[in-house]
């Protein structure tokens, strides 16, 4: 790396690691000149992505998503609640994103990290406005009982592109969700039917025999890109995010409709051509992520 610069400054006689720490921006720019990134990726390619469904045995639906070393654990717990008066035939979903101190040196115990709340809000915005889940499907007895889905996402390792990984794990957890069987008891209340009873003789007919799986309409997937000068870097690591500040997150659903295009400021201005390039990268990424999700689901079915 040092040889690229050659002549005048320290970089010719400095170790690569030291140079990386002292002049992080220049270190990255040398790489970008050669259309490669420090971890040997091309500018437009994302890190390896893996997905494991059913990571939390006690939850009704769960998934562990890894994009590079960014790791997210999502789990869903279903509870029966009385629906609100305004929407008597709809269930609801509560989404919470947690960043425990284990995930990054920047997070301290105590007050929740600011980033966590913003990502929570973004996640619920994306999941609700994409229309992935029809809340009417969460209804059990109109006006009386509906499901409340608590989706909790824990960030275990924060190495950049947090929102992408969180959204992937959330979508995967919903596709793994098995809604528990419930029945009405004599008092007209909803009770859980334990697994043994389902197979054996039942005193009461379960309320939701058929509706054990949620139907997901066109799940959204996202790609975060960094803009730096004329370069577009897909799926940045934490190091890249800290050095180059302009971030664009594109969320597309399965029909390539735009669910969100999020650019919170940043020194680089995004012109129309740049936005179109980011969307094109996101389209490619959606295909990849759909394959990753389908593979994870079919692996699950084989087991």
């Amino acid at each position, binding site marked *: 790396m040092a040889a690229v610069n050659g002549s005048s400054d320290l970089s010719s006689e400095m170790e690569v690691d030291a140079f990386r720490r002292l002049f992080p921006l220049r270190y990255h720019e040398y790489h970008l000149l050669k259309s490669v990134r420090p971890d040997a990726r091309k500018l437009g390619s994302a890190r390896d992505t893996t997905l494991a469904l059913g990571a939390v045995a006690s939850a009704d639906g769960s998934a562990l998503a890894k994009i590079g070393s960014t790791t997210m654990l999502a789990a869903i717990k279903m509870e029966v609640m009385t629906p609100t008066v305004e929407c008597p035939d709809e269930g609801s979903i509560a989404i919470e994103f947690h960043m425990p101190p284990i995930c990054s040196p*920047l997070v301290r115990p105590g007050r929740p990290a*600011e980033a966590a*709340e*913003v990502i*929570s*809000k*973004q996640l619920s*915005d994306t999941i609700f*406005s*994409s*229309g992935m889940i029809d809340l009417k499907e969460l209804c059990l007895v109109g006006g009386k009982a509906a499901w409340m889905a608590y989706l909790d996402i824990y960030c275990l390792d924060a190495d950049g592109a947090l929102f992408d990984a969180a959204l992937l794990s959330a979508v995967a957890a919903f596709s793994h969700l098995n809604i528990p069987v419930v029945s009405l008891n004599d008092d007209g209340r909803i009770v859980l039917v334990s697994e043994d009873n389902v197979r054996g003789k039942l005193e009461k007919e379960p309320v939701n025999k058929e509706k054990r799986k949620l139907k997901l309409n066109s799940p959204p997937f996202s790609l975060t890109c960094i803009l730096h000068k*004329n370069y577009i870097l897909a799926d940045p690591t934490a190091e890249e995010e800290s050095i180059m500040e*302009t971030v*664009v997150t594109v969320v597309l*659903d399965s029909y*390539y*409709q*735009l*669910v*969100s*295009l*999020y*650019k*919170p*400021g*940043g*020194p680089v*201005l*995004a*012109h*129309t*051509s740049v*936005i*179109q390039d980011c*969307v094109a990268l996101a389209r490619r990424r959606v295909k990849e992520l759909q394959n990753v999700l389908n593979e994870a689901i079919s692996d699950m079915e084989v087991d």
Partner: protein
Amino acid sequence: METDRKDGRTANQLRPLACTRNVLNRAHGSASWSQGETKVLAAVYGPKAGTKKNENPEKACFEVIWKPKTGQIGKAEKEYEMILKRTVQSICVLNVHPNTTTSIIIQVVNDDGALLPCAINAVCAALVDAGIPLKHLAVAICCSLAESGHILLDPSKLEEQKMKAFVYLVFPNSTLSVLPEESLKVRGEPMEHGLITSFTHGVMSVDDYIRCLERGRAATGKLSDFLRRSLQSQVQSDSSKLG
């Protein structure tokens, strides 16, 4: 292209704008900005010594405090704070006052749609009033997209709820420069066509988004003219007071 709007505006028409600077006595800079019934008050305090934790001490640091009209600050407001902070950081010259913190306080007076764009415009005027060094101004606009594909600019709260999607866009203001126009262009496009901030809500096609961008860009021209005029007139009256 006929679309009925409750207040009789055309699709591209903005609500009446009003901007007053120097409305608060103790603040180093302040401004109130209203678009129709939406009104926001912004105050700037600083630069004060020292940066907050986890901030780069070699640069000026900003903190944004959002006060809603009623009640406690929630997740939506936290997100607005974050967007505002990043937007302000991208328009300010951060090297002039290293190791300082500037506080920006937003008080929502009334929310009738397009709240975040209104707040961004207010902050911009307040930053000028406080004399914080800026690279350029920023102008923000809300475009909303109807089911039928029509784009309405600067929607009111009612319109915002009826629409299938809306977009908040922030652009740099148009520059007045002695340099020849060609030299100011970035990749063949004028600087003010570059997007600083984008925030969307609801599903739309990519083409619709690009159409929103074009409409927004066209409208921000007028907005930035208004901002410039209102800043200039007060600069003149300020200097006449001094004289």
